Protein backbone atom coordinates (compact mmCIF):
# COMPACT_ATOMS: atom_id res chain seq x y z
CA UNK A 1 0.00 0.00 0.00
CA UNK A 2 1.32 3.37 -0.85
CA UNK A 3 -0.59 6.31 0.36
CA UNK A 4 -3.56 4.02 0.63
CA UNK A 5 -3.59 2.81 -2.93
CA UNK A 6 -2.57 -0.74 -3.67
CA UNK A 7 0.34 -1.09 -6.06
CA UNK A 8 -1.85 -3.28 -8.21
CA UNK A 9 -3.89 -0.31 -9.14
CA UNK A 10 -0.84 1.46 -10.40
CA UNK A 11 0.30 -1.50 -12.34
CA UNK A 12 -3.08 -1.83 -13.94
CA UNK A 13 -3.32 1.83 -14.67
CA UNK A 14 0.08 1.82 -16.31
CA UNK A 15 -0.76 -1.29 -18.26
CA UNK A 16 -3.90 0.34 -19.54
CA UNK A 17 -2.09 3.49 -20.54
CA UNK A 18 0.64 1.49 -22.15
CA UNK A 19 -1.82 -0.56 -24.10
CA UNK A 20 -3.67 2.51 -25.21
CA UNK A 21 -0.34 3.66 -26.57
CA UNK A 22 0.15 0.36 -28.33
CA UNK A 23 -3.31 0.47 -29.81
CA UNK A 24 -2.64 3.99 -30.94
CA UNK A 25 0.50 2.87 -32.72
CA UNK A 26 -1.43 0.17 -34.43
CA UNK A 27 -4.51 2.14 -35.25
CA UNK A 28 -3.20 5.42 -36.54
CA UNK A 29 -1.63 6.28 -39.84
CA UNK A 30 -0.31 9.67 -39.01
CA UNK A 31 3.32 9.16 -38.13
CA UNK A 32 3.28 11.97 -35.63
CA UNK A 33 0.37 10.52 -33.76
CA UNK A 34 2.10 7.18 -33.82
CA UNK A 35 5.08 8.82 -32.35
CA UNK A 36 2.99 10.45 -29.72
CA UNK A 37 1.48 7.16 -28.80
CA UNK A 38 4.98 5.84 -28.26
CA UNK A 39 5.52 8.75 -25.93
CA UNK A 40 2.39 7.74 -24.14
CA UNK A 41 3.80 4.26 -23.71
CA UNK A 42 6.95 5.69 -22.26
CA UNK A 43 4.97 7.79 -19.87
CA UNK A 44 3.06 4.80 -18.68
CA UNK A 45 6.39 3.20 -17.92
CA UNK A 46 7.50 6.33 -16.13
CA UNK A 47 4.49 6.30 -13.92
CA UNK A 48 5.04 2.68 -13.15
CA UNK A 49 8.63 3.32 -12.24
CA UNK A 50 7.70 6.13 -9.93
CA UNK A 51 5.08 3.97 -8.31
CA UNK A 52 7.57 1.21 -7.74
CA UNK A 53 10.11 3.73 -6.58
CA UNK A 54 7.75 4.88 -3.92
CA UNK A 55 6.85 1.34 -3.09
CA UNK A 56 10.43 0.40 -2.53
CA UNK A 57 11.30 3.73 -1.06
CA UNK A 58 14.14 3.77 -3.52
CA UNK A 59 15.15 6.84 -5.47
CA UNK A 60 16.76 4.99 -8.33
CA UNK A 61 13.40 4.36 -9.93
CA UNK A 62 12.80 8.06 -10.17
CA UNK A 63 16.30 8.64 -11.43
CA UNK A 64 15.62 6.14 -14.15
CA UNK A 65 12.66 8.21 -15.15
CA UNK A 66 15.02 11.10 -15.78
CA UNK A 67 16.94 8.99 -18.17
CA UNK A 68 13.82 7.90 -19.91
CA UNK A 69 12.85 11.50 -20.29
CA UNK A 70 16.24 12.36 -21.70
CA UNK A 71 16.05 9.52 -24.13
CA UNK A 72 12.52 10.39 -25.07
CA UNK A 73 13.60 13.91 -25.77
CA UNK A 74 16.50 12.72 -27.89
CA UNK A 75 14.30 10.25 -29.71
CA UNK A 76 11.72 12.88 -30.39
CA UNK A 77 14.35 15.26 -31.67
CA UNK A 78 15.77 12.71 -34.07
CA UNK A 79 12.40 11.26 -34.84
CA UNK A 80 10.86 14.55 -35.75
CA UNK A 81 13.88 15.45 -37.82
CA UNK A 82 13.47 12.22 -39.76
CA UNK A 83 9.76 12.79 -40.00
CA UNK A 84 10.23 16.21 -41.45
CA UNK A 85 12.73 14.81 -43.92
CA UNK A 86 10.28 12.10 -44.89
CA UNK A 87 7.62 14.70 -45.27
CA UNK A 88 9.91 16.70 -47.52
CA UNK A 89 10.47 13.73 -49.76
CA UNK A 90 7.14 11.97 -49.63
CA UNK A 91 4.96 14.97 -49.03
CA UNK A 92 3.15 12.87 -46.51
CA UNK A 93 3.72 11.26 -43.19
CA UNK A 94 1.19 8.54 -43.66
CA UNK A 95 2.97 5.44 -42.44
CA UNK A 96 1.05 3.24 -44.82
CA UNK A 97 2.55 5.06 -47.73
CA UNK A 98 6.00 4.21 -46.52
CA UNK A 99 5.93 0.72 -47.83
CA UNK A 100 8.06 0.80 -50.91
CA UNK A 101 10.57 -1.68 -49.62
CA UNK A 102 8.95 -5.02 -49.20
CA UNK A 103 8.97 -8.73 -49.83
Amino acid at each position, binding site marked *: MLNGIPINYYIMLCAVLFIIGVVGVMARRN*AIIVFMCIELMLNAVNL*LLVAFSTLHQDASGQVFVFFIMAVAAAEVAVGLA*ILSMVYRNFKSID*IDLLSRIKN
Partner: protein
Amino acid sequence: MKGLFILSGLGILAMLAEIFKFKKVLYPLVLIGIIVAYALGFTEWNANFNIPMFSNMIRFDNVALAFSGVILATSFFWFILANDYFEKDHITDHFALVLFALVGALMLTAFSNMTTLFLGIEILSIPMYVLAASRKRDLASNEAGFKYLIMGSFASGFLLFGIALIYGATGSFDLMAIRAYISHNGSELPAFFYAGVLLVLVAMLFKVSAAPFHFWAPDVYEGSPTVITALMSTIVKTAAFAAFMRLFLVTFGGVNETWGMILSVVIALSLVVSNITAAAQQSVKRMLAYSSISHAAFMLMAILANNRGMASVSAILYYSLAYSIGSIAAFTVVYHVSKEENGSSNLEAFNGLAKRHPLMAVCMTVAMLSLAGIPVTSGFFAKYFVFSLLIGTSFNWLIILAILTSAVGVYYYFKVIIAMYFKAPAKHDGITIDSSHAVLLLLTTLITIALGLVPNFVIEIFG
Protein backbone atom coordinates in the same frame (compact mmCIF):
# COMPACT_ATOMS: atom_id res chain seq x y z
CA MET B 1 36.55 1.14 -20.23
CA LYS B 2 39.28 3.29 -21.61
CA GLY B 3 38.15 2.35 -25.09
CA LEU B 4 34.77 3.75 -24.26
CA PHE B 5 36.26 7.06 -23.31
CA ILE B 6 38.51 7.18 -26.30
CA LEU B 7 35.62 6.60 -28.64
CA SER B 8 33.51 9.18 -26.89
CA GLY B 9 36.38 11.59 -27.15
CA LEU B 10 36.86 10.79 -30.80
CA GLY B 11 33.19 11.40 -31.40
CA ILE B 12 33.34 14.78 -29.80
CA LEU B 13 36.54 15.50 -31.67
CA ALA B 14 34.78 14.66 -34.91
CA MET B 15 32.17 17.25 -34.11
CA LEU B 16 34.85 19.74 -33.42
CA ALA B 17 36.62 18.90 -36.65
CA GLU B 18 33.94 20.64 -38.57
CA ILE B 19 34.56 23.76 -36.60
CA PHE B 20 38.31 23.64 -36.37
CA LYS B 21 38.83 22.42 -39.92
CA PHE B 22 40.81 19.32 -39.47
CA LYS B 23 38.50 17.02 -41.40
CA LYS B 24 41.38 15.57 -43.38
CA VAL B 25 43.15 14.06 -40.41
CA LEU B 26 39.99 12.77 -38.91
CA TYR B 27 39.89 9.52 -40.81
CA PRO B 28 43.39 8.38 -39.86
CA LEU B 29 42.80 9.69 -36.38
CA VAL B 30 39.74 7.50 -36.03
CA LEU B 31 41.60 4.44 -37.26
CA ILE B 32 44.41 5.10 -34.85
CA GLY B 33 41.94 5.75 -32.10
CA ILE B 34 40.29 2.40 -32.65
CA ILE B 35 43.62 0.65 -32.59
CA VAL B 36 44.54 2.45 -29.40
CA ALA B 37 41.21 1.57 -27.86
CA TYR B 38 41.80 -2.00 -28.87
CA ALA B 39 45.27 -2.00 -27.39
CA LEU B 40 44.02 -0.46 -24.17
CA GLY B 41 41.53 -3.24 -23.97
CA PHE B 42 44.43 -5.64 -23.70
CA THR B 43 45.83 -3.79 -20.74
CA GLU B 44 42.53 -4.20 -18.97
CA TRP B 45 42.40 -7.90 -19.66
CA ASN B 46 42.00 -9.80 -16.40
CA ALA B 47 42.67 -6.54 -14.53
CA ASN B 48 39.25 -5.19 -13.81
CA PHE B 49 37.63 -8.46 -13.25
CA ASN B 50 34.85 -8.16 -10.73
CA ILE B 51 35.74 -4.67 -9.73
CA PRO B 52 32.54 -2.70 -10.01
CA MET B 53 32.93 0.72 -11.55
CA PHE B 54 30.68 3.69 -11.07
CA SER B 55 28.56 2.00 -8.47
CA ASN B 56 28.50 -1.11 -10.59
CA MET B 57 26.93 0.66 -13.50
CA ILE B 58 29.33 -0.85 -15.93
CA ARG B 59 31.75 -3.66 -15.62
CA PHE B 60 34.45 -4.31 -18.16
CA ASP B 61 35.14 -7.89 -17.26
CA ASN B 62 36.81 -10.25 -19.69
CA VAL B 63 33.62 -11.12 -21.50
CA ALA B 64 32.91 -7.47 -22.05
CA LEU B 65 36.44 -6.86 -23.21
CA ALA B 66 36.28 -9.78 -25.59
CA PHE B 67 33.09 -8.55 -27.16
CA SER B 68 34.45 -5.03 -27.25
CA GLY B 69 37.42 -6.47 -29.04
CA VAL B 70 35.16 -8.01 -31.65
CA ILE B 71 33.29 -4.78 -32.06
CA LEU B 72 36.44 -2.70 -32.31
CA ALA B 73 38.05 -5.08 -34.77
CA THR B 74 34.95 -5.12 -36.89
CA SER B 75 34.66 -1.38 -36.74
CA PHE B 76 38.25 -1.04 -37.87
CA PHE B 77 37.47 -3.07 -40.95
CA TRP B 78 34.24 -1.26 -41.35
CA PHE B 79 35.98 2.11 -41.41
CA ILE B 80 38.20 0.86 -44.18
CA LEU B 81 35.16 -0.30 -46.06
CA ALA B 82 33.42 2.99 -45.46
CA ASN B 83 36.18 5.30 -46.65
CA ASP B 84 34.14 6.32 -49.66
CA TYR B 85 31.13 6.92 -47.58
CA PHE B 86 32.86 9.54 -45.52
CA GLU B 87 34.09 11.44 -48.48
CA LYS B 88 30.73 12.93 -49.09
CA ASP B 89 28.89 15.63 -47.33
CA HIS B 90 28.52 15.79 -43.57
CA ILE B 91 31.67 13.87 -43.10
CA THR B 92 32.13 14.93 -39.51
CA ASP B 93 28.54 14.25 -38.59
CA HIS B 94 28.80 10.75 -39.90
CA PHE B 95 31.98 10.13 -38.02
CA ALA B 96 30.50 11.43 -34.84
CA LEU B 97 27.37 9.36 -35.23
CA VAL B 98 29.23 6.17 -35.97
CA LEU B 99 31.59 6.74 -33.11
CA PHE B 100 28.75 7.44 -30.74
CA ALA B 101 27.03 4.31 -31.93
CA LEU B 102 30.21 2.46 -31.14
CA VAL B 103 30.15 3.90 -27.67
CA GLY B 104 26.67 2.52 -27.29
CA ALA B 105 27.81 -0.81 -28.60
CA LEU B 106 30.64 -0.96 -26.12
CA MET B 107 28.26 -0.10 -23.34
CA LEU B 108 26.08 -2.98 -24.33
CA THR B 109 28.99 -5.34 -23.92
CA ALA B 110 29.73 -4.11 -20.43
CA PHE B 111 26.58 -2.84 -18.79
CA SER B 112 25.74 -4.15 -15.41
CA ASN B 113 22.74 -2.08 -14.67
CA MET B 114 19.45 -1.71 -16.43
CA THR B 115 20.13 1.98 -16.74
CA THR B 116 23.28 1.45 -18.70
CA LEU B 117 21.56 -1.21 -20.74
CA PHE B 118 18.84 1.18 -21.69
CA LEU B 119 21.20 4.03 -22.37
CA GLY B 120 23.50 1.77 -24.33
CA ILE B 121 20.69 0.59 -26.51
CA GLU B 122 19.52 4.09 -27.14
CA ILE B 123 22.98 5.49 -27.75
CA LEU B 124 23.48 2.73 -30.26
CA SER B 125 20.07 3.06 -31.82
CA ILE B 126 19.59 6.76 -32.19
CA PRO B 127 22.65 7.28 -34.39
CA MET B 128 21.66 4.19 -36.33
CA TYR B 129 18.24 5.66 -37.06
CA VAL B 130 19.94 8.71 -38.42
CA LEU B 131 22.55 6.78 -40.34
CA ALA B 132 19.92 4.55 -41.89
CA ALA B 133 18.20 7.63 -43.15
CA SER B 134 21.42 9.36 -44.05
CA ARG B 135 20.88 9.37 -47.78
CA LYS B 136 18.40 12.10 -47.49
CA ARG B 137 17.22 12.22 -51.06
CA ASP B 138 16.89 8.52 -51.36
CA LEU B 139 13.35 7.44 -50.60
CA ALA B 140 14.45 4.00 -49.62
CA SER B 141 16.89 5.36 -47.14
CA ASN B 142 14.21 7.65 -45.78
CA GLU B 143 11.85 4.83 -45.41
CA ALA B 144 14.47 2.64 -43.79
CA GLY B 145 15.34 5.26 -41.22
CA PHE B 146 11.74 5.95 -40.49
CA LYS B 147 10.80 2.32 -40.10
CA TYR B 148 13.77 1.67 -37.94
CA LEU B 149 12.90 4.62 -35.77
CA ILE B 150 9.26 3.75 -35.25
CA MET B 151 9.90 0.08 -34.66
CA GLY B 152 12.90 0.75 -32.49
CA SER B 153 11.08 3.20 -30.27
CA PHE B 154 8.14 0.91 -30.06
CA ALA B 155 10.39 -1.93 -28.95
CA SER B 156 12.09 0.36 -26.48
CA GLY B 157 8.71 0.91 -24.90
CA PHE B 158 8.41 -2.78 -24.22
CA LEU B 159 11.95 -2.94 -22.96
CA LEU B 160 11.19 -0.18 -20.50
CA PHE B 161 7.97 -1.71 -19.40
CA GLY B 162 9.83 -4.91 -18.76
CA ILE B 163 12.56 -3.13 -16.86
CA ALA B 164 9.97 -1.32 -14.82
CA LEU B 165 8.28 -4.55 -13.89
CA ILE B 166 11.55 -6.12 -12.95
CA TYR B 167 12.40 -3.13 -10.91
CA GLY B 168 9.06 -3.39 -9.29
CA ALA B 169 9.70 -6.90 -8.24
CA THR B 170 13.31 -6.58 -7.22
CA GLY B 171 13.61 -3.00 -6.19
CA SER B 172 16.82 -2.54 -8.06
CA PHE B 173 18.21 -1.96 -11.52
CA ASP B 174 21.45 -3.64 -10.70
CA LEU B 175 21.97 -6.90 -12.53
CA MET B 176 23.78 -8.51 -9.62
CA ALA B 177 20.98 -7.54 -7.31
CA ILE B 178 18.40 -8.91 -9.70
CA ARG B 179 20.34 -12.10 -10.00
CA ALA B 180 20.69 -12.36 -6.27
CA TYR B 181 16.98 -11.69 -5.93
CA ILE B 182 16.18 -14.52 -8.31
CA SER B 183 18.40 -17.00 -6.60
CA HIS B 184 17.22 -15.82 -3.21
CA ASN B 185 13.54 -15.92 -3.78
CA GLY B 186 13.61 -18.99 -5.98
CA SER B 187 10.11 -20.10 -6.64
CA GLU B 188 8.27 -17.26 -5.00
CA LEU B 189 8.85 -14.65 -7.64
CA PRO B 190 5.77 -12.57 -8.44
CA ALA B 191 4.20 -13.30 -11.78
CA PHE B 192 4.78 -9.82 -13.07
CA PHE B 193 8.49 -10.30 -12.64
CA TYR B 194 8.29 -13.03 -15.23
CA ALA B 195 6.23 -10.72 -17.36
CA GLY B 196 9.01 -8.20 -17.08
CA VAL B 197 11.60 -10.75 -18.12
CA LEU B 198 9.53 -11.75 -21.09
CA LEU B 199 9.00 -8.18 -22.19
CA VAL B 200 12.72 -7.58 -21.98
CA LEU B 201 13.17 -10.77 -23.97
CA VAL B 202 10.81 -9.49 -26.62
CA ALA B 203 12.66 -6.21 -26.85
CA MET B 204 15.99 -7.96 -27.16
CA LEU B 205 14.62 -10.36 -29.74
CA PHE B 206 13.56 -7.31 -31.65
CA LYS B 207 17.06 -5.91 -31.43
CA VAL B 208 18.63 -9.12 -32.72
CA SER B 209 15.82 -9.37 -35.27
CA ALA B 210 14.43 -12.77 -34.48
CA ALA B 211 11.09 -13.84 -35.89
CA PRO B 212 8.38 -12.74 -35.43
CA PHE B 213 10.04 -9.48 -34.40
CA HIS B 214 12.28 -9.42 -37.42
CA PHE B 215 10.20 -7.67 -40.01
CA TRP B 216 11.96 -4.39 -39.74
CA ALA B 217 15.34 -5.90 -40.51
CA PRO B 218 15.09 -6.76 -44.21
CA ASP B 219 13.46 -3.48 -45.07
CA VAL B 220 15.88 -1.41 -43.07
CA TYR B 221 18.87 -3.35 -44.31
CA GLU B 222 17.79 -2.96 -47.86
CA GLY B 223 16.92 0.68 -47.64
CA SER B 224 19.98 1.83 -45.79
CA PRO B 225 23.18 2.69 -47.58
CA THR B 226 25.13 -0.54 -48.08
CA VAL B 227 27.87 0.60 -45.78
CA ILE B 228 25.42 1.29 -43.00
CA THR B 229 23.79 -2.05 -43.60
CA ALA B 230 27.19 -3.60 -43.06
CA LEU B 231 27.47 -1.70 -39.81
CA MET B 232 24.05 -2.79 -38.68
CA SER B 233 24.51 -6.41 -39.49
CA THR B 234 27.87 -6.64 -37.79
CA ILE B 235 28.50 -4.25 -34.95
CA VAL B 236 24.94 -3.58 -33.93
CA LYS B 237 24.21 -7.25 -34.00
CA THR B 238 27.26 -8.18 -32.00
CA ALA B 239 26.46 -5.59 -29.40
CA ALA B 240 22.87 -6.73 -29.21
CA PHE B 241 24.02 -10.26 -28.66
CA ALA B 242 26.48 -9.26 -26.02
CA ALA B 243 23.63 -7.57 -24.22
CA PHE B 244 21.26 -10.43 -24.81
CA MET B 245 23.80 -12.85 -23.45
CA ARG B 246 24.52 -10.79 -20.37
CA LEU B 247 20.86 -10.48 -19.63
CA PHE B 248 19.73 -13.98 -20.26
CA LEU B 249 22.76 -16.09 -19.55
CA VAL B 250 23.89 -14.21 -16.52
CA THR B 251 21.06 -12.25 -15.03
CA PHE B 252 18.01 -14.26 -15.92
CA GLY B 253 19.83 -17.57 -16.18
CA GLY B 254 18.03 -18.67 -13.05
CA VAL B 255 14.60 -18.43 -14.62
CA ASN B 256 15.46 -20.04 -17.90
CA GLU B 257 12.45 -22.33 -17.80
CA THR B 258 10.40 -19.16 -18.27
CA TRP B 259 12.04 -18.11 -21.48
CA GLY B 260 13.73 -21.30 -22.75
CA MET B 261 10.76 -22.80 -24.51
CA ILE B 262 9.68 -19.47 -25.93
CA LEU B 263 13.16 -18.83 -27.19
CA SER B 264 13.31 -22.22 -28.85
CA VAL B 265 10.09 -21.54 -30.71
CA VAL B 266 11.37 -18.14 -31.73
CA ILE B 267 14.56 -19.72 -32.99
CA ALA B 268 12.69 -22.31 -34.96
CA LEU B 269 10.47 -19.67 -36.47
CA SER B 270 13.44 -17.49 -37.31
CA LEU B 271 15.30 -20.34 -38.96
CA VAL B 272 12.38 -21.30 -41.10
CA VAL B 273 11.17 -17.85 -42.02
CA SER B 274 14.55 -16.35 -42.70
CA ASN B 275 15.95 -19.17 -44.76
CA ILE B 276 12.84 -19.79 -46.73
CA THR B 277 12.29 -16.15 -47.46
CA ALA B 278 15.90 -15.66 -48.40
CA ALA B 279 15.66 -18.46 -50.91
CA ALA B 280 13.58 -16.39 -53.29
CA GLN B 281 15.39 -13.10 -52.89
CA GLN B 282 16.82 -11.51 -55.95
CA SER B 283 18.65 -8.76 -54.14
CA VAL B 284 21.83 -9.97 -52.53
CA LYS B 285 21.70 -7.23 -49.97
CA ARG B 286 18.26 -8.25 -48.89
CA MET B 287 19.31 -11.86 -48.96
CA LEU B 288 22.10 -11.02 -46.57
CA ALA B 289 19.56 -9.37 -44.32
CA TYR B 290 17.58 -12.58 -44.14
CA SER B 291 20.74 -14.51 -43.67
CA SER B 292 21.55 -12.30 -40.72
CA ILE B 293 18.25 -13.34 -39.18
CA SER B 294 19.15 -16.95 -39.60
CA HIS B 295 22.55 -16.34 -38.04
CA ALA B 296 20.86 -14.58 -35.19
CA ALA B 297 18.81 -17.71 -34.70
CA PHE B 298 21.99 -19.72 -34.51
CA MET B 299 23.47 -17.42 -31.92
CA LEU B 300 20.27 -17.59 -29.96
CA MET B 301 20.66 -21.34 -29.97
CA ALA B 302 23.89 -20.90 -28.07
CA ILE B 303 22.06 -18.82 -25.51
CA LEU B 304 19.29 -21.35 -25.36
CA ALA B 305 21.80 -24.00 -24.47
CA ASN B 306 22.50 -22.01 -21.31
CA ASN B 307 24.10 -24.86 -19.40
CA ARG B 308 27.78 -25.01 -20.08
CA GLY B 309 29.31 -22.15 -18.22
CA MET B 310 31.55 -20.11 -20.45
CA ALA B 311 30.99 -22.38 -23.42
CA SER B 312 27.93 -20.51 -24.58
CA VAL B 313 29.68 -17.20 -24.17
CA SER B 314 32.69 -18.20 -26.16
CA ALA B 315 30.48 -19.76 -28.80
CA ILE B 316 28.58 -16.53 -29.22
CA LEU B 317 31.80 -14.59 -29.21
CA TYR B 318 33.23 -16.77 -31.91
CA TYR B 319 30.05 -16.74 -33.88
CA SER B 320 29.75 -13.01 -33.85
CA LEU B 321 33.36 -12.58 -34.84
CA ALA B 322 33.10 -15.08 -37.66
CA TYR B 323 29.85 -13.66 -38.84
CA SER B 324 31.00 -10.06 -38.64
CA ILE B 325 34.19 -10.67 -40.55
CA GLY B 326 32.40 -12.71 -43.19
CA SER B 327 29.72 -10.08 -43.51
CA ILE B 328 32.21 -7.28 -43.89
CA ALA B 329 33.79 -9.15 -46.78
CA ALA B 330 30.44 -9.87 -48.34
CA PHE B 331 29.24 -6.31 -47.98
CA THR B 332 32.44 -4.97 -49.43
CA VAL B 333 31.78 -7.00 -52.56
CA VAL B 334 28.10 -6.09 -52.59
CA TYR B 335 29.08 -2.48 -52.22
CA HIS B 336 31.30 -2.52 -55.25
CA VAL B 337 29.01 -4.59 -57.37
CA SER B 338 26.03 -2.41 -56.65
CA LYS B 339 28.08 0.68 -57.25
CA GLU B 340 28.86 -0.77 -60.64
CA GLU B 341 25.19 -1.48 -61.28
CA ASN B 342 23.80 1.88 -60.21
CA GLY B 343 22.84 0.81 -56.78
CA SER B 344 21.22 -2.48 -57.63
CA SER B 345 22.53 -5.47 -55.81
CA ASN B 346 20.46 -7.94 -57.76
CA LEU B 347 21.81 -11.38 -58.39
CA GLU B 348 22.32 -10.62 -62.05
CA ALA B 349 24.75 -7.93 -61.08
CA PHE B 350 27.02 -10.69 -59.82
CA ASN B 351 26.97 -12.62 -63.07
CA GLY B 352 30.43 -13.43 -64.24
CA LEU B 353 32.13 -11.58 -61.45
CA ALA B 354 34.79 -14.27 -61.49
CA LYS B 355 35.87 -12.96 -64.86
CA ARG B 356 35.46 -9.32 -64.12
CA HIS B 357 37.25 -9.30 -60.83
CA PRO B 358 38.60 -12.65 -59.70
CA LEU B 359 39.75 -11.44 -56.31
CA MET B 360 36.31 -10.20 -55.39
CA ALA B 361 34.78 -13.43 -56.63
CA VAL B 362 37.13 -15.56 -54.58
CA CYS B 363 36.66 -13.46 -51.46
CA MET B 364 32.92 -13.44 -51.92
CA THR B 365 33.03 -17.20 -52.35
CA VAL B 366 34.93 -17.64 -49.15
CA ALA B 367 32.53 -15.31 -47.40
CA MET B 368 29.55 -17.23 -48.72
CA LEU B 369 31.13 -20.51 -47.72
CA SER B 370 31.74 -19.13 -44.29
CA LEU B 371 28.19 -17.87 -43.95
CA ALA B 372 26.96 -21.22 -45.16
CA GLY B 373 29.14 -22.93 -42.59
CA ILE B 374 31.47 -24.98 -44.74
CA PRO B 375 34.82 -26.05 -43.27
CA VAL B 376 37.48 -24.80 -42.86
CA THR B 377 36.04 -21.35 -42.80
CA SER B 378 35.19 -19.77 -39.49
CA GLY B 379 31.48 -20.00 -40.18
CA PHE B 380 31.73 -23.71 -39.89
CA PHE B 381 33.31 -23.63 -36.49
CA ALA B 382 30.73 -21.17 -35.37
CA LYS B 383 27.96 -23.52 -36.29
CA TYR B 384 29.85 -26.41 -34.86
CA PHE B 385 30.08 -24.76 -31.47
CA VAL B 386 26.42 -24.07 -31.48
CA PHE B 387 25.59 -27.63 -32.37
CA SER B 388 27.90 -29.03 -29.80
CA LEU B 389 26.32 -26.83 -27.16
CA LEU B 390 22.82 -27.79 -28.00
CA ILE B 391 23.28 -31.48 -28.60
CA GLY B 392 22.10 -33.71 -25.84
CA THR B 393 19.77 -31.07 -24.44
CA SER B 394 16.07 -31.34 -24.92
CA PHE B 395 16.39 -29.18 -28.01
CA ASN B 396 17.79 -31.80 -30.35
CA TRP B 397 14.90 -31.12 -32.68
CA LEU B 398 16.17 -27.61 -33.17
CA ILE B 399 19.41 -29.00 -34.48
CA ILE B 400 17.62 -31.07 -37.04
CA LEU B 401 15.64 -28.04 -38.08
CA ALA B 402 18.81 -25.98 -38.20
CA ILE B 403 20.41 -28.53 -40.49
CA LEU B 404 17.48 -28.66 -42.81
CA THR B 405 17.27 -24.93 -43.03
CA SER B 406 21.03 -24.72 -43.48
CA ALA B 407 20.56 -26.71 -46.64
CA VAL B 408 18.17 -24.05 -47.82
CA GLY B 409 20.78 -21.55 -46.75
CA VAL B 410 23.30 -23.22 -48.96
CA TYR B 411 20.87 -22.74 -51.78
CA TYR B 412 20.88 -18.99 -51.63
CA TYR B 413 24.53 -18.54 -50.75
CA PHE B 414 25.45 -20.73 -53.66
CA LYS B 415 23.17 -18.86 -55.96
CA VAL B 416 25.66 -16.05 -55.63
CA ILE B 417 28.61 -18.34 -56.24
CA ILE B 418 26.95 -19.89 -59.25
CA ALA B 419 26.17 -16.46 -60.62
CA MET B 420 29.75 -15.34 -60.18
CA TYR B 421 31.34 -18.36 -61.76
CA PHE B 422 28.77 -19.79 -64.02
CA LYS B 423 26.68 -17.06 -65.55
CA ALA B 424 27.88 -14.87 -68.33
CA PRO B 425 28.46 -11.26 -67.33
CA ALA B 426 26.40 -8.51 -68.88
CA LYS B 427 29.41 -6.28 -69.02
CA HIS B 428 32.85 -7.53 -69.70
CA ASP B 429 34.94 -4.70 -68.50
CA GLY B 430 36.80 -5.28 -65.29
CA ILE B 431 35.89 -3.60 -62.06
CA THR B 432 38.44 -1.48 -60.34
CA ILE B 433 38.41 -1.23 -56.63
CA ASP B 434 40.38 0.71 -54.13
CA SER B 435 43.61 -0.88 -53.10
CA SER B 436 42.53 -0.40 -49.51
CA HIS B 437 39.42 -2.39 -50.29
CA ALA B 438 41.45 -5.10 -51.98
CA VAL B 439 43.53 -5.32 -48.86
CA LEU B 440 40.40 -5.35 -46.76
CA LEU B 441 38.97 -8.20 -48.82
CA LEU B 442 42.14 -10.19 -48.58
CA LEU B 443 42.45 -9.52 -44.90
CA THR B 444 38.90 -10.50 -44.04
CA THR B 445 39.15 -13.58 -46.23
CA LEU B 446 42.37 -14.61 -44.58
CA ILE B 447 40.93 -14.03 -41.15
CA THR B 448 37.87 -16.05 -42.08
CA ILE B 449 40.06 -18.97 -43.03
CA ALA B 450 42.54 -18.47 -40.25
CA LEU B 451 39.78 -18.39 -37.67
CA GLY B 452 38.56 -21.64 -39.14
CA LEU B 453 41.97 -23.19 -38.94
CA VAL B 454 42.86 -21.98 -35.49
CA PRO B 455 39.73 -21.23 -33.56
CA ASN B 456 41.63 -21.74 -30.32
CA PHE B 457 42.42 -18.11 -29.78
CA VAL B 458 38.85 -17.13 -29.59
CA ILE B 459 37.42 -20.23 -28.05
CA GLU B 460 39.94 -20.51 -25.31
CA ILE B 461 40.03 -16.82 -24.60
CA PHE B 462 38.29 -17.18 -21.27
CA GLY B 463 40.68 -19.87 -20.12
